[in-house]
Every structure is written in C-alpha cells, then in structure tokens.
C-alpha cells in the first residue's frame, strides 16, 4: 500500500464517497447534488454522533423501563411481540 495518499485512486474514493452520500439523510434531501468530500466527511461525523446520542438516549429509556418492570415479564413481553409480528 503506497504511503502517498494522493496516489490512491481518486475514483475509488469518489465511489465510496457517493455511497456515503446516499446513506446520509441530509444528502438525500438535497437532491443528490455532489457535495465536496470534506463537507461529506463532516456530515458523516455529525450523523454518527447524532446516532450515538440517540442510542444513548434509548439506553437510558430502556434502563429506566426495565427498572420499573420485573425482568421476566419484560423479556416475556418482548419475546411475545417478536413472535407476533
């Protein structure tokens, strides 16, 4: 693997970046105009951070919920609804 990063095929990078762009919610809204690589990376970082925050919030919610129920009925409830769908 060459150490000069400019040598890595620009095409490959662009390809991956457009894949990334299709994942980001912002980019979808913008209608698919090509944003600069730096902008995309920044949006990716922000998106990951916000997803992490959501998961943290959900963890808090789940732990609070599990505190109020006894564990067995919590599990039973989840399994029951998984089987139902």
């Amino acid at each position, binding site marked *: 693997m060459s150490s000069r990063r400019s040598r890595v095929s620009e095409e490959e990078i662009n390809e991956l970046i457009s894949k990334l762009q299709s994942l980001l919610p912002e980019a979808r809204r913008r209608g698919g105009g090509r944003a600069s690589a730096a902008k995309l990376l920044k949006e990716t970082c922000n998106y990951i951070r916000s997803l992490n925050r959501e998961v943290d919030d959900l963890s808090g919610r789940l*732990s609070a919920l599990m*505190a109020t129920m006894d564990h067995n*009925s919590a599990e039973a409830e989840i399994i029951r609804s998984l089987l139902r769908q």
Partner: protein
Amino acid sequence: MAISDAEGESPAAAKEVGGERKRKRLAERSLLAKWKTEGERKSYSSKLIEALRAAVATDCSRSRAVRVAADRALAVTARGRSRWSRAILSRRTLKLRSRARVARLKPPAAAAGPRAAERRKPPALEQKARVLGRLVPGCRKLPLATLLEEATDYIAALEMQVRAMSAVAEILSAAAGGGRSSSVAAEPM
C-alpha cells in the same frame, strides 16, 4: 430464540460476470441492505434481550451498561465481517467515552478567498478523516478507502440499532403503562 440465519451470503454476487470490482460492489450493497431487513432486526432484538438481562443486574450506571450490552449485541449480529464489530467485541471493560474537547485547529487559509483546488487533498480533508476514524470503533489508523467502507457499514448498523431499541422501548412502555394487556393462558386454579 428465533435467530434467523436465513440469508447468508448473497448467491447472486458470485454468479455475476464482469470483474471482481462489480462483484464486490454487489456484495457490499447486499451486505448493507442486510441491516434493513426485518430478520436482522429481530435477530438483533433477541440478542439484545439476553444482553439486557445481564445488564440490569448491576445497579450502578445502568444505562451505560445497557449501551454496552446493546453495542456488543450489535457487534455479534455483524458476524465478524467488519473491523468496527471486532473492535467492539474486544473491548474488555466499559469504555468510558471521554468527550475530550480537543480544540479543532481550523486550517489557516480556509475561511476567505477562493476555495482551494479540491484535487490536491487539503489538510481539512485529512483532519475530518481522522475525526471519522475516531468515531468508528477500531478504525483510527485506516487508509481512507477502508475507513469509508467501515463507516458506511457502521452507520447502517447504528440505524438498525436505533430502530430495534425504539421498538423494544415501545413494547416495554406499552406493557408498563397499560398493565399486562394480554394475559398468559391462566393455569386452572
């Protein structure tokens, strides 16, 4: 515990004629699509339940323990195909994510004036890539191409995690709020 092992590798990818890159692209797309299937979400949910059981045992910092358990379950669902999942699984203790407020050095000539030629890879890009590398577990020193691959998979997985945990939270809050609505078949007294 219904662990759906239905899909496995996409057979279509192997049959495609026309070069390895095309095959790889197809395989990647189907790998990403996996995170959106109901099967994956349910498989994750069942692992999540087991993990939650372990997590709520400890009294202190329960939500942290839930997060750790949820992440581990997510990494297991990834079936070792990605670096970030292997990195999560090899975390030994609770990783305290220190929000180090590192002052982000603004590149000096970026603000005003004509935009620098993007062909040349200005330091801003490298910096952002470094930040991204810190966000995705186990990806600090990767070359950009690999890092982007890992990041796309990680994002898809996180989205699934959010969907699954939201669903579980709905179920539990419905159960907790309305009382046990569907009663189990009562044993004859």
